[in-house]
């Protein structure tokens, strides 16, 4: 009976993870998102302008690099970007297309490195959740064992469970709720790069 209560608690706790986490079915066990884990955003996926490999290093073009950093920053709202790109294009001179390509190449590199950090963070977070799930399982087992030895009632078992188990359950639950947002972040970054690339291409 006691074991059943403990098992029930454990199942209920882990049940919180199932609908929200949606662990990916591939062998990438550190990746908890339903969205597929993909590599860096490639230039070709978002850009049909000049080849970024043929227009020179973007950070050698100082003004382009300043603009790229500004556009890539999350603090710059999308609706301010048109004015910034227009101002740059107006002063860009004869090699305007190459210089706008520098801006795009800069944005892509900066956002991709940010995206790398986010992806690593998501994997770290997934490992933390797994450790916590193991701990919850062990705590539930421990309660079961203790109660069996002391032969306590189900009500007393529940009291005991309200300590460590309660806190772990809370952390686990909150993290599971946050997961859908965390998993969306790589897509949000991709969307931002695409939006900036589109704005730059309109001015080529």
């Amino acid at each position, binding site marked *: 009976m006691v074991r059943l209560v403990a098992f029930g608690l454990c199942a209920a706790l882990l049940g919180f993870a199932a609908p929200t986490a949606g662990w990916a079915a591939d062998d990438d066990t550190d990746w908890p998102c339903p969205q597929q884990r993909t590599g860096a955003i490639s230039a*070709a996926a978002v850009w*049909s302008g000049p080849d970024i490999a043929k227009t020179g290093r973007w950070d050698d073009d100082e003004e382009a690099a300043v603009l790229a950093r500004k556009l890539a920053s999350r603090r710059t709202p999308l609706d301010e970007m048109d004015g910034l790109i227009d101002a740059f294009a107006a002063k860009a001179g004869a090699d305007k297309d190459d210089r706008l390509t520098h801006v795009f190449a800069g944005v892509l590199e900066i956002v991709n490195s940010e995206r790398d950090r986010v992806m690593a963070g998501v994997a770290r977070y997934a490992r933390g959740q797994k450790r916590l799930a193991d701990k919850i399982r062990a705590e539930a087992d421990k309660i079961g064992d203790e109660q069996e030895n002391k032969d306590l009632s189900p009500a007393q078992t529940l009291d005991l469970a309200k300590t460590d188990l309660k806190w772990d359950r809370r952390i686990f639950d909150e993290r599971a709720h946050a997961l859908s947002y965390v998993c969306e972040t790589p897509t949000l970054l991709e*969307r931002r790069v*695409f939006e900036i690339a589109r704005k730059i291409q309109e001015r080529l």
Partner: protein
Amino acid sequence: MRGVTISALLIGCAVCCAACPAAAYQVYVTNEKGNSVSVIDTEKLAVTKTIKVGRRPRGVLVSPDGKELYICASDDNGIQVVDTSSQKILRTLNSGPDPEQFALNPSGNPLYIANEDDSQVTVLDVEKNQIVARVPVGVEPEGMALSPDGNVLVNTSEVTSMAHFIDAHTFKLIDSVLVDRRPRVAVFSKDGSQLWVSSEIGGTVAVIDPKAHKIIKKIKFDVPGLTRQEIQPVGVRLTSDGKTAFIALGPANRVAVVDAQTFEVKKYLLVGLRVWHLALTPDEKLLFTTNGNSNDVSVIDVPALKVLKTIPVGLAPLGVVSSPN
């Protein structure tokens, strides 16, 4: 006198048509995660209305008279019928479980529905809301098409990688053609001489002779800088003159323009993130694309083969159809 009046009317009409280069159609877009349908006016090129519908709306069709819209509300296991003038949900049709894509008989009845979870095609009398037939097909049926003469129904099954040919009168399976992995969309050419089937994981489009049930040509796509895995064909549209095909390439974020006579890819147009489905306006001047990850729709100028505009819609746009008038 009468002749003069008619001539005047004709001239008047000609002047009017010259002044308005394109007729205004309504384009309907299902937002899979927004549980809504965005209505786009093709003259304004903007969303004029948003209709709340059932959960996870995917496939969308319009009746031949343009008065009713059919929407696969996949998570509600039904097809909702929406009055296009009042934007009210009139009724829910008995679609069978998890309807995803479907085809409508050109007469307006019946509806042929792919039931993804049930490995069957449901044939439904739209007026009586009665199931006429259930046809067992391959695993995870998806794409549906009816031949222009109304005699052959085609369904694609995602897991079994087949195009199934079904007699549209007896509902018996005639033949199946193996295509590349995960076939998603099937479209007949207007003259019925070709069937185009897109394979999402295979990364190809098979052009099939629907009489011989043989593949005539397999079209491959190559976008410089992109890996093969990033090219995932889904949506297919053909112009009625049989000269041009448009293929939506999913995470390649591009629409391929294919010469439908030589089967050569002429151009790739960058549209939006994860492009799913396509719709041509009846005058074939505009093509609309649903971009699932950028939450917008791109409008392509068909004669110029250029992207005209991007229109923000709801969350995760998927299905798209144009009104017939």
